[in-house]
């Protein structure tokens, strides 16, 4: 509980730190079966959701970085998404279908911070889909590794 409070406090600090223009910049665009056919989420929208942390190994980095972000299912609920599959699209037009069940079975987050440093498009940001790989043996598999979309920019629900 204390940890959660600190986390919320931290996120508020980060939100205050972000300039107004950055807070209003669209980070994620959700299309398909969502409220009104299209939902654009800004940094301010994500700040309004509950934030979580996952410490996990990844296939492209060393060690066990700590990721901070919001739950994918919270984002989809926020957009009133209704479907079986989410087609995730990255800035470089990398596209992959992710079953909606993943987000309910596992605490998959849309990470905005890695080891306390904000992810940018020059790295794997602004949003990186991160699975709790170390908590579930089944996730250490190429079929799940392919769903770790970095530079996530859009989600299409169908």
């Amino acid at each position, binding site marked *: 509980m204390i940890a959660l409070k600190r986390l919320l406090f931290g996120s508020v600090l980060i939100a205050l730190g972000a300039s107004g223009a950055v807070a209003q910049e669209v980070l994620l665009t959700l299309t398909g079966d969502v409220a009104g056919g299209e939902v654009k989420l800004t940094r301010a929208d994500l700040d309004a959701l509950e934030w979580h942390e996952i410490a996990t190994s990844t*296939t492209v*980095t060393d060690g066990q970085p700590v990721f901070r972000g919001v739950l994918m299912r919270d984002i989809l609920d926020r957009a009133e998404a209704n479907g079986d599959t989410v087609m995730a699209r990255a*800035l470089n037009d990398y596209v992959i279908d992710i079953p909606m069940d993943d987000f309910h079975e596992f605490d998959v987050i849309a990470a905005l911070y890695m080891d306390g440093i904000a992810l940018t*498009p*020059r790295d794997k940001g602004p949003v990186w889909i991160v699975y709790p790989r170390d908590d579930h043996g089944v996730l250490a598999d*190429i079929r799940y590794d392919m769903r770790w979309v970095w530079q996530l920019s859009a989600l299409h629900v169908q």
Partner: protein
Amino acid sequence: MNRLGARWRYSGLGALIVVCLGLLVIAASNIIRIERQMQISVTQNMTWIFGQTQIEALSLSAALSNDANSDVVLLRYDLLVSRLNLLRDGPQWRFLSEAGLAEGLMGWRDGLLRLDPAEGGDPAALKAHVSALSMALRQKASQVMSREWQVRSERLDQLSKLHLLALAAIIGALISGAALAVLLVDRERRLMQARLDRLRAERLQRDLTHERAASEGYRRFADLIAHQVRTPLAVIDSAMHRLTRSGKPPAPEVIRTKADVSRQAVARLVRLTDTALMMARVDRGAVAPELACHDLDRIAATVIEDLHAGNRVTLRTGNHPVTAICDPVLTSEILSNLLSNALLYSPRHSEIDVRPLQNGELAICDVCDQGAGMTPEEMAAAFENFVRGARHRDLPGSGLGLPLARHLARLQGGDLMLKPLEGGGLTARLSLPAKVVT
């Protein structure tokens, strides 16, 4: 020698079990290692990652050539930097370093960052740098692919080696398992043989004991003949000798006395033969009792009368008649036997009591004498064929009376027991099934 052989067999078995289990453990550990190594990771997709970097370089180059708007150029620039950053990350960088392809890559990245369009970098210089970079990347791409295939092949070699090792271990385990099975089956066969031998030995032992008992019986029978048949024969012989002695013919009283003595001797012989015959019939199972309800008091009274023993024997009947389910002929035989014994082995003129009584579901007839009684050893041996009390060997008797009486009692569902009487004497108790009056 045999013990040494057994020890060898046991240590051989133990060694085989250890070998078999050890090989199975090796096979299992190899299979687990194979399972672990079979997982594919994204890092093994270096050709794709490298290709993407190349594509981003070409895309940025194209955007710069087409004078695209600054947002597009910035995005392309960011993406190219992100790909180079990805190559710099741990697993990718190790792969490139091991392949000797890492050299110079970060120099390209630093050059790129110095020409950052967001910070007013020179577009022409940037374009030239990116073109040169994409050329350099193209040269390395084929090397990345060949390196990746080499790594994969090595991994496959490793896997197939582990696989072969596991297979060999399993085959070894199979062979030692088969040897183990053969040894165990052989052991089981030996055990079975030993059990059969033991059973055969036990049967032989039983047969031997039986034979010994039979031969003991014959010995006692010979003893009986010596004592019990010879005596009356000697009496008769002596009487005949006296009657046919030369000289004065015997007086009529002497003739009668000798005839009486001879007849008594003959009667003894006949009784002996009857008892032996009856025993033989009982032994053969040729005696079938005809069971019915009979008054035990009346049977006892008739026996006493037949033995002309009324002067010494008292029949003490209770208030109620005792009804037994029995064969009257066999029961008379038993009681006659018991009474004869009592008359024979107790002092002349001493009293003998016969007491029929009912005890629950048993009809009992006690024959109590005031004789010398029997020692516990004598009582234990009394029901064996041809056994006679040491103190009475010269009294007439077959040694078959009590065994026969007990056989006859048991034939009728009853029993016969001996027990000492308080104050000297012996009680022989015949018990038979009673007719229970409801």
